[in-house]
């Protein structure tokens, strides 16, 4: 059978960054399958897809759709031959309804006036045809992210797309929404559509896709049927070496209590409690995992711990000292490090140099400034030490960082936060958006800090990450601690029950039931 899409010998060189983003790439997709395209950040998968969608012109190479050679110089050409793309960042009008967004530019009219009823009916029909449940009359701004993505997919489908490209579709979704998306994607292939699924989360490849192509450093490494491969194999193809997917670690050697939260509450913007009456402690030498579906108060908790949000009730103690009223700088000076959720806008200032990013938490210390003047020499020494000990090979002292990869940027944050051996590290989603190799590095670094006696609070919505790193797990649900589990005595299933709002009672029952099953 002729493949529905074939790309042959695609090359593209970017002179501005001196990168050969695609080097004679061959890529072929069968009709009616979900085909994953994986690779680390900067491997060239986005460039390849942008060429396919007409956003970038290749230097050389040919594209065939169902065996026929096509020229795609503009997204309009791509749409004409049946290619649709859902970008990672949605392009929707928030104040318009679902139907208005989908029919934007092709609104049905009657006597020159908008025919809203026909518009809604058309969209309802379209949604039904593809099995994507959605209310056409809801405003997009009132929809959760997963539903907004559905609107984007419908937009593509109503232009009669045969091939749907999904660019990192799960990056913004909650675990439940990921499940729904994979059902939607499956449904599309049943109707004869072909889906190209760009991702770097390998577990999704196994769950959702039929075939997988792996890219590395601008080249196509290989294409396999998903049934014939597994995660370690794919990870090796992506990174080019064996990857430790689950960090090796000894049991925690717990020390005394470093930090204690007593009955802490924070209200969010609307005045509702973002976290309410949260009490817990963290010991030296342990990783305390905070699990929970995104948006259950984790961000507010970390911001409160770091001193970026005041408490509306309760107290924080650091080494038995009340720090409730102290500000960010005072807490940093005490030895509290913070790896924020958003490294691009919060954790780093991409407009300035590496040096100035690295000194933000210590420029005030006597080694780094004297009589108001910054001491260039100590700063430069510090920068060089961080570059060396965190092997940030791409970064140079005194130069900008805006062009570095996500992995390297996170290394800069880690290097800054872990230097000066802090007693408490707040790590909020430290591997979000990173590729396999960088995740391995971050995990290893955190475990090493733990083994040096550092207390770590790790917030993550990736259950896998919590299970492999944390020694103890607190599960957050609607701003409260739903339960506490010891990692070595629990499993993902039990944590999942609590994440979904179940109680410790239910967990115990499940456990008892499972044990009686085994005994029988």
């Amino acid at each position: 059978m002729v493949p529905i899409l074939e790309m042959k010998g695609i090359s593209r060189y970017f002179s501005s960054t001196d990168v050969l983003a695609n080097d004679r790439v061959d890529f072929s997709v069968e009709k009616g399958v979900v085909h994953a395209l994986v690779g680390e950040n900067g491997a060239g998968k986005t460039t390849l897809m942008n060429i396919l969608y007409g956003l970038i012109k290749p230097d050389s190479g040919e594209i065939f759709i169902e065996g026929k050679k096509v020229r795609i110089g503009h997204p309009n050409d791509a749409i004409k031959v049946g290619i649709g793309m859902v970008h990672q960042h949605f392009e929707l009008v928030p104040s318009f309804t679902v139907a208005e967004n989908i029919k934007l530019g092709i609104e049905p009219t009657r006597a020159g006036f908008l025919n809203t009823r026909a518009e809604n009916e058309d969209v309802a029909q379209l949604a039904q045809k593809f099995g994507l449940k959605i209310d056409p009359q809801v405003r997009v701004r009132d929809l959760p992210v997963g539903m907004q993505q559905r609107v984007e997919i419908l937009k593509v489908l109503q232009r009669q797309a045969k091939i749907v490209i999904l660019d990192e579709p799960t990056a913004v979704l909650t675990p439940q929404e990921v499940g729904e998306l994979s059902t939607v994607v499956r449904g599309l292939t049943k109707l004869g559509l072909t889906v190209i699924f760009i991702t770097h989360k390998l577990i999704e490849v196994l769950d959702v896709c039929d075939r997988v192509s792996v890219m590395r450093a601008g080249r196509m490494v290989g294409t396999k049927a998903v049934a014939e491969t597994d995660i370690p194999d794919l990870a090796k193809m992506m990174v080019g070496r064996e990857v430790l997917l689950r960090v090796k670690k000894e049991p925690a050697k717990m020390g005394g209590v470093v930090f204690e939260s007593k009955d802490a509450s924070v209200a969010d913007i609307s005045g509702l409690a973002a976290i309410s009456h949260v009490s817990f402690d963290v010991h030296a030498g342990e990783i305390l995992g905070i699990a929970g579906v995104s948006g259950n108060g984790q961000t507010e908790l970390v911001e409160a711990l770091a001193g970026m949000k005041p408490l509306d009730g309760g107290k924080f103690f650091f080494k038995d000292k009340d720090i409730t009223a102290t500000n960010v700088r005072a807490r940093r000076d005490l030895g509290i490090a913070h790896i924020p959720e958003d490294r691009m806008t919060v954790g780093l200032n991409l407009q300035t140099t590496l040096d100035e990013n690295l000194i933000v938490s210590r420029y005030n210390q006597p080694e780094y400034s004297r009589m108001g003047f910054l001491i260039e020499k100590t700063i430069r020494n510090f920068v060089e030490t961080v570059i060396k000990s965190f092997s940030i090979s791409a970064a140079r002292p005194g130069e900008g960082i805006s062009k570095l990869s996500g992995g390297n940027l996170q290394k800069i944050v880690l290097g800054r936060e872990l230097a000066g051996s802090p007693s408490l590290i707040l790590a909020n989603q430290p591997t979000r958006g990173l590729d396999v190799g960088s995740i391995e590095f971050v995990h290893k670094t955190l475990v090493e800090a733990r083994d040096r006696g550092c207390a770590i609070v790790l917030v993550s919505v990736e259950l896998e990450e919590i299970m492999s790193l944390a020694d103890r797990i607190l599960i957050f649900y609607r701003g409260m601690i739903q339960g506490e589990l010891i990692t070595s005595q629990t499993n993902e299933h039990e944590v999942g029950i609590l994440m979904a709002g179940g109680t410790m009672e239910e967990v115990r029952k499940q456990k008892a039931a499972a044990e009686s099953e085994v005994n029988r």
Partner: protein
Amino acid sequence: MTPRALRKLLDAILIPLLAVLSGLVLMGVLVVVTGKPLWESYQILFTSAFGCKNAATSCSLFTTLERATPLIFTGLSAVVAFRSGMFSIGQEGQYLMGAVMAAYLGYAIHLPYVIHPIVIILASMAAGAVYSWIPGILKVKLGVNELLATIMLNAIATTFTEYMVQYPMRADRGTTAHSPIIDATAFLPSFFQGSRWGVGFIIAVLAVIVVIVYLWRTKSGYEQRMAGQSLKFAFYGGIPSDQAAIRAMVISGALAGLAGAVEVLGVQHRIMTGFSTGLGFDGLTAAILGQTHPIGVFIVAILFAGLRLGAQIGLQIQVHIPQEVGGTIIGFIILFVAARKFYENSIASVRKLLTRNKDIKAKGEGG
């Protein structure tokens, strides 16, 4: 200089340079349309802006430098505010406050040479600083937009100056109101007899250096720039950004106030009705065209002053082209800087063309 640093510098000055050239070309169009000699006009514009036949008697370069001096200060004032994330356009008002203070203390108090101007300069800087602190504190405490606040304060300062000249400080009942001439002890001396280019310019050069050192080599400057580039990052890192914002406004105001003092002590020796000639706004545009860098401001201020002078004493008197052409060229230049995307795109396509040729050549040699 390393090739990397050189490239960075080229990137920074390429667009302003192209904008200036485009502005001058458009001036040529204006000249041709009005039927005046093209080449001669350019020549006259430049010799009457930057020419220097005789240091003592006819040196227009000195006049240009004299006129650039207050622009340098107001430009630096804008640089300090912009770099710290405060979009303050209050230089005009702060400049006037500084000038009123200088004109008043120039005749109201009597001090010996050297001490008199120093006291006045400090007082004028304080006047500008306080006038700029107002929008700063409003922004930090109440979230009042500093752009709007400074516009309002500019209007108030203009009216206030006019009132001071017309009533309390008025020296005579002639047709144009002006304040008394300040004491000779307060004069900032000039370098040559017959020219008013003097010590003020030295202060301006020093101010350029001080601002560079302050912004890029001190803790406070670091705090201000970080808060200016990314408030979130500054907050996360524990930088006291409210303090940084207020400090930025105070320093910015002091520099604009200094401009007023230097203009009064070194050039006008009094204030008169219509004293405000848009120096604050020219400084603002000098800051933008100068890539919000003190050295850029220094160069652009001299260029602007030269264009205005060249148009005034060159084009107007010698070729009878209205002196407003000078302002028009500056307007064009600003317009072209605003259209920087146009230049960026053209530069990118030129670069692409060049590298493609190189690639082909390299490939040819390889094959």
